[in-house]
């Protein structure tokens, strides 16, 4: 595998079995996408898989001043794009874990206690995760309270759909829609929001 996209984490702001929030500094171009699959490596060799549910770019004072400045040398706008790390808070929802080579869609037995980096999963890993035993991990996403569930879901599905198609699994998406409908059958407003958002993917 090529060099993994790695985001060093400055500090772990809060973590429990379901979610954690990492304070990081990322270059603008490396900011992960909403709904992207990422993983953290724990000391014992296991890995926790998570979905990015929110990225909060904190105000950076400097950027604010730059933005309102009249004439900024192009070198300095480039500086901000390539050199400066934006302080971001990345919210990650645990959706599964891997231990001794086996992938599970359950919550990890232990939350991450101290991290040094967040690894963004590439397409191959995304396909592997989404095909390891059904769509059970959706239920973790649907339990989100303070993040926009529909947006995260749709963002994730869009990425997973594209990746699965590329890797020869075009039926994955249909199954995912089916599962969502089953899970959200009793929550009409939410289901219709998700479906309407998915409709735009077509």
């Amino acid at each position, binding site marked *: 595998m090529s060099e993994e996209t790695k985001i060093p984490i400055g500090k772990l702001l809060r973590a429990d079995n379901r979610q954690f929030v990492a304070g990081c500094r990322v270059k603008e171009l490396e900011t992960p996408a909403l709904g992207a699959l990422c993983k953290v490596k724990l000391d014992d060799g296991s890995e926790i898989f998570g979905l990015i549910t929110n990225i909060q770019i904190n105000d950076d004072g400097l950027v604010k001043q730059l933005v309102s400045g009249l004439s900024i040398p192009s070198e300095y706008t480039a500086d901000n794009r390539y050199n400066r790390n934006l302080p971001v808070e990345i919210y990650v929802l645990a959706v599964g874990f891997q231990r001794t080579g086996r992938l599970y869609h359950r919550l990890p037995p232990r939350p991450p206690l101290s991290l040094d980096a967040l690894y963004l999963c590439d397409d191959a890993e995304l396909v592997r995760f989404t095909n390891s035993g059904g769509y059970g991990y959706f239920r973790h996403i649907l339990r989100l309270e303070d993040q926009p569930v529909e947006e995260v879901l749709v963002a994730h599905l869009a990425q997973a759909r594209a990746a699965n198609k590329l890797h020869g699994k075009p039926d994955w998406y*249909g199954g995912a829609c089916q599962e969502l*409908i*089953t899970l959200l059958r*009793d929550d*009409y407003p939410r*289901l219709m929001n998700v*479906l*309407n958002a998915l409709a735009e993917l077509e």
Partner: protein
Amino acid sequence: MTDLNMQTFEQNKPIGYVVGGGLENNLQVRLTLPPQEVQEGAFVVIDSGTWRFYGLVTDLQLGSTDPRFADEQSELRLPAGLAGLLHGQTLFTNLNVMPVLMIDRGPEPGSLGYEAWRQEHPENMAPVTVKTVPSHHAPVRLADAEDIAQIFGEEDNHNIFCVGHTREQGHPVCLNLEKLVQRSSGIFGTTGSGKSFLARMILAGLIHAGHTATLIFDMHNEYGPDSTSSDTGQAVPGLKGKFGAKVRLVGLGAKTSFGKLPADFTLEIAQSDITSEDILLLSEELNLNETAATVLSALERDLGDQWFSAFADMRNGAMEQNEDGKSVPAPDSVAFWANQAGVNAKSAEALRSKLDRVMRKDYLVRSTATRGLQEVIDSLENGIQVILSFGEYSNDLDYLLVTNLLTRKIRDRWKKLTEDSYKDKGKQPRPLVVVVEEAHKLLNRGMASQTIFSTIAREMRKYYVTLLIIDQRPSQIYDEVMSQLGTRISGSLGDEDDINAVLSGLPGRGALRGMLAKLQPKEEVLMLGWGVPMPIPIRSRRYDARFWQQVLGSQEQPKTIAEINRSLGFEADDTD
């Protein structure tokens, strides 16, 4: 197999699965096909564990997991794929299935418990009334020909007689004729609903099977001769034409014929056949009062068998001068006899004048050229079908009198035959079915006290005599009679009272009410009741040339006696 406008199902493919319900309120089945592919009245089979359940679809209901899914047309907003997935999970159709029968199929042959089970049940099990329910998610499928044969029997052109086909797949549905005639039965439907065709088919079946005699009171000359269908204008073969000598056309009175066909036999009734009981039955019609009974018993006591003729000879109010010059009743007067017999003269005279109507009937003769009523009874006893036409004698008095006389004789005869058979085990009387058209004329509440039909309906089946009622107003029929009916076959009925009447006495058949109301006129009937293992709506068999071909085979139709005579060189004789 009729050509029905239906798609062919793959045999045994499930159409749904059980989701709830129970014995009292019917089973709920989730349909896994589009609702248009199943109709009310479909005969379905549910397998659960070792049991197989048989039931009827009595309702279809559209449902949704949330009413908003049904209200909002998401197929307009979502792409087809998503909309399809959504609807597949949120919108559904539930069937109401009325379970009726179940059968223990036992474990699979070759499986562990099979040998043991076979030991216990060496014969294959018969279907029993349903007493339990299938489990959740038990698969439900439409019955196939094999299932129907299992329940209704396989057509053998003899006793198991095909009366129609299932509506959804056209599998043949049969009646067990032997069972049918063990109880009284009824064929109902509005005018033009095809009930008389159905009756003719069943009678044809009975005649062909040969073990039952039938006496048909044919008010409108429908049964014997060929006629023309009032709807299609096509020729409709008659029973006489097809069965020849097995059928006797009997006309009441000399003038009665059967349209183009002459009567085989003219029925004249000897006056000596009339008993006081017969007269008393007609009290309401004749407007007799309480005194009549006394007079009648005096007449019978005094004059014996010929009382009726003798009474007829007497004149009302005949007077003469006696020695003293006083007016005294003449010796041939009613009053004379009354005084002499010790009954009130006025009562006797009243009775005489009221009986005049009866006495003047043409077909009531002092002595008959033939054996009259007995001739009819004998034919029946020998297995010949008798169709009695009333000709011009079409008022209530005629119906009542003649049918009462006949049925009384039948009752007496069959009772004796049955009692004899107790001693001599071999000789059971031949079952007799008395077919009554327009039954509400004779069997309404008002008339009920005046006919013996309710007696037949109630008691006579022990003596092998049952009724077959054909009528379009079952609500008018005396409920005592209705409740005795075993098998009921009904075409479409418009009136709610009629529908209730057809269903009366049958337990928990509310579900069938809707089905009855929605039958296709002329094409569909609902069979239910004792003679039918389970209620089922069917597309009735067509009574046409093809029917005859199927029943009688490709043999030549039997010739009438006249034709046989003719072929032998004898002149055709109208009356036998």
